[in-house]
């Protein structure tokens, strides 16, 4: 497929790299000359320097031949204009745009109207807020992902020093009588991604992903020694950017007491007009004394959501030290993530990755139900429906020779029955398959579960 990407920033680059690896032809339009030179070096894509909202530039970039447009420049206006130009001057079938405006709900109808015909509008702040809210009340859990309409869950958790699982091998865990149907799917250790086998042991600092049926959630938490969800009462939010406001509004609705720290007075005044019960505090929320004065002791969660990665990391560490039960940080620099996790921040979210996931999921639409990137671009969780005639169907899992670095996490039969498979499980056509694998194995595995994928793409 020929794909035109507007904007060669972090999101554009991540998406492009994946799409290129999946044998698509990618052209990127980027405004900064310096960035163009960098992109040339790291991507096997055609790079066109120029404005994403210039008709001439887009035509030069091959608007006429492209089949898909992904508008992810850092300007909403440019993204919308790019889509408008594509609508008028080309036959492009699929258009995806990122919009940051808080008026996104109103824009939704404009975007889907015949004038623009944008197929997918991504609002990074809202999508990230959704992910954050799911784990606010679970101190030991860094991430929860839903599959098969919530029937299967993937939870991410950090192995801490005081946990009983430290030093235990997979076989040991198996012997200690875990809840049936749960499985350690992947372990992130520093820069490494491990699909654990019987003899692999867990270490302090590992970030572990466990897949389980939804009804076994509390059992599994108990087994792992992770405190259960309690009612969230008090939450501090650092930074009055849009994502902070979004989260605050949703927490309010759940009846949570929220304090939002923002250093800019004018911004504070503006926010206080938007929120109901949230207390907007005009102070530096990364200052220990301030936090103590505002009664940080015993809060359920501290959310560092400023635009500054370093500040978010430092502030959450501080908050943890002075008594927050859970610290969540927004970190966009992806190479910081493993380090921040090691330092003890419970959850880390990147709004960039969230956008990348949404785009990839959309690009692969049809055969794949969902795509989630686990940590930078090293591994993915994929959910798809197996089709008749595919290579891996009708055989026992132990006989299909899954490549190293891949694991089938769950099978959901059409009846709704969830199976966390062992070696003797057999996948049948129509099953939903949820698998986890290193990123470079994705195309290979997808084609093993879905027949005709190769032909369809060609």
């Amino acid at each position, binding site marked *: 497929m020929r794909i035109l990407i507007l904007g060669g920033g972090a999101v554009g680059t991540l998406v492009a790299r994946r799409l290129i690896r999946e044998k698509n032809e*990618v052209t990127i339009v980027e405004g900064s*000359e310096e960035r163009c030179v960098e992109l040339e*070096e790291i991507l*096997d894509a055609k*790079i066109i320097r120029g404005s994403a909202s210039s008709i001439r530039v887009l035509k030069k970039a091959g608007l006429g031949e492209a089949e898909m447009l992904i508008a992810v420049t850092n300007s909403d206006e440019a993204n919308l204009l790019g889509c408008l130009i594509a609508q008028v001057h080309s036959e492009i079938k699929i258009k995806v745009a990122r919009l940051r405006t808080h008026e996104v709900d109103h824009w939704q109808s404009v975007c889907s109207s015949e004038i623009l015909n944008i197929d997918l509008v991504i609002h990074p702040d809202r999508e990230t807020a959704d992910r954050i809210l799911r784990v606010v009340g679970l101190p030991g859990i860094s991430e929860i992902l839903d599959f098969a309409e919530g029937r299967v869950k993937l939870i991410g958790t950090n192995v801490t020093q005081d946990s009983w699982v430290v030093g235990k091998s997979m076989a040991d865990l198996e012997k200690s009588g875990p809840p049936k149907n749960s499985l350690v799917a992947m372990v992130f250790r520093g820069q490494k991604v491990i699909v654990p086998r019987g003899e692999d042991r867990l270490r302090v600092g590992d970030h572990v992903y466990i897949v389980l049926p939804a009804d076994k959630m509390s059992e599994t938490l108990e087994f792992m020694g992770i405190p259960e969800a309690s009612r969230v009462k008090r939450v501090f939010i650092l930074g009055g950017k849009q994502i902070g406001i979004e989260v605050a509004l949703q927490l309010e609705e759940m009846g949570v007491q929220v304090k939002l720290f923002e250093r800019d007075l004018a911004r504070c005044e503006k926010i206080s007009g938007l929120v109901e019960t949230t207390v907007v505090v005009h102070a530096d929320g990364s200052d220990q004394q301030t936090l103590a004065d505002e009664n940080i002791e015993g809060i359920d969660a501290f959310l560092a959501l400023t635009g500054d990665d370093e500040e978010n990391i430092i502030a959450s560490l501080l908050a943890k030290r002075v008594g927050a039960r859970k610290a969540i940080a927004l970190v966009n620099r992806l190479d910081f993530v493993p380090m921040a996790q090691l330092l003890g921040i419970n959850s880390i979210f990147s709004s960039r990755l969230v956008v990348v996931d949404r785009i990839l999921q959309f690009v692969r639409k049809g055969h794949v139900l969902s795509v989630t990137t686990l940590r930078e671009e090293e591994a993915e969780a994929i959910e798809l429906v197996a089709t008749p005639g595919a290579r891996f169907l009708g055989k026992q899992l132990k006989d299909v020779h899954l490549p190293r670095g891949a694991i089938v996490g769950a099978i959901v039969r059409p009846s709704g029955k969830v199976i966390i498979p062992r070696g003797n499980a057999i996948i049948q056509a129509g099953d939903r398959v949820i698998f986890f694998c290193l990123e470079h194995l994705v195309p290979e595995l997808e084609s093993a579960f879905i027949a005709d994928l190769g032909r369809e793409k060609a």
Partner: protein
Amino acid sequence: MIGWRNILQIAGYFILALAASLGLVVLFALFNDDAGFDALVLATLIAVGLGGFLCLACRCSPRQISNREGILLVVITWVAAGLVGALPFYFSAHFGNFTDAFFESISGFTTTGATILEDIEALPRSLLLWRSLTHWIGGMGIILLGIAILPLLGTGGMELYRAEFSGASSERLTPRIAETALALWKLYLAFSVAEFLALWAAGMDYFDAICHTFSTMATGGFSTRNASIESFSSPAIEFIIIFFMVVAGINFTQHYRLLMERRPRAFFTDYETRFYFVLLAAATAAVTLTLNLSSPNFFEAIRVALFQVVSIMTGTGFSSADFGLWSPFAQLLLLALMFVGGCTGSTTGGMKVARIFLLFRVVAREFRRIVERRGIFAIRFNREAVSESTVQSLLNLVYIAFLINFAACMALTALGVDVFTAISAVAASMFNIGPGLGKVGPSETYGHLPHLAKWVLSFCMLAGRLEYYTLLVLFTGAFWRK
């Protein structure tokens, strides 16, 4: 950090590819019971051995090539090509020593076409074929062929592409670099087939037609005859060769626009292509006028002038007349055309038409700046502003070309070569033309030059083919520092 294993492994693949092309010539020799057979077989075996050894000894999983590794790989591959290409010449008895064999080989790959042979026709036909084939391989580029067919040069391909392809801007024909490279090679092949058929139809035998096709499309200049194209004394053949020399001197990106994308407007409105035609026409007119004074037939004078002008400007170096006997003005004009060369992205040598054109504009801007002291003037090309960094690197390139040129001339004169011969020999080597003027003119050879001079000129040829920086940067300390 330079990943030696990685690049030596890839260089091994390139050498194996060269061995394969040598193998084709061996087959030719076998079926024609040719005298060059033994030398070719020996050379092929050595090439297979060397390439195979590098591939096996440096076996590792391929990874992305960095900027530095790309430059190093390109230079290593080109030097290796020169060495491997020299083997059959060396093993045959026709070249006195390895210096001569290497000179002939590197002159072939860089599409220079300068020869040390007094009597070309005495060479076995298989070696003549190999001589021309080195042109054809080097013309579009060894590395470019590698990018097209070796999947292991994925993302790093762009670095290599830039290091080898002349004046390669960031513009790709297709989003994937491998497809761009493949498209270029396909065009090149298609033109070559067309020329072969045309020459054959015009009365050349198939062997001469193949050899001259290879030489023309690569704008090389090796002929199978001592008297070059003159020996065929056929206006039809001359016109066919003129046409394909002109074609080979145009940017292949423009050919792609015209033939594959069917956008003739883009082709004909391109500044460089236009300026190229204007220069060719103007130079031909000037030379015709100087010739006409001594020649009775006006149309023949035009044809002779056109052939020589095209041949020299595109850096082919065929001759249909001994221009060494022409008036000093005509000779000097040809020398000037050597510096200009063809278009960027073509198989020609020289500074390239686009650069000369930009250079004019830079100079013109300087004058405007003197008059309009506060004015800001962008340099425009093809209706787009050229960035200041591009202008800067253009000026640097011109500067370094003249610097090497001058240094090489000094070296040659120090070795006892006369000034006019030295200047034209260096220009003809560096800009990949072939025959120069004076004692290296079209009826002479480079054979009589001192050994050391041949090495200097070999260096110039490679420096010119790789557009200076790629080769010269290896001689800077910064390149090797971590």
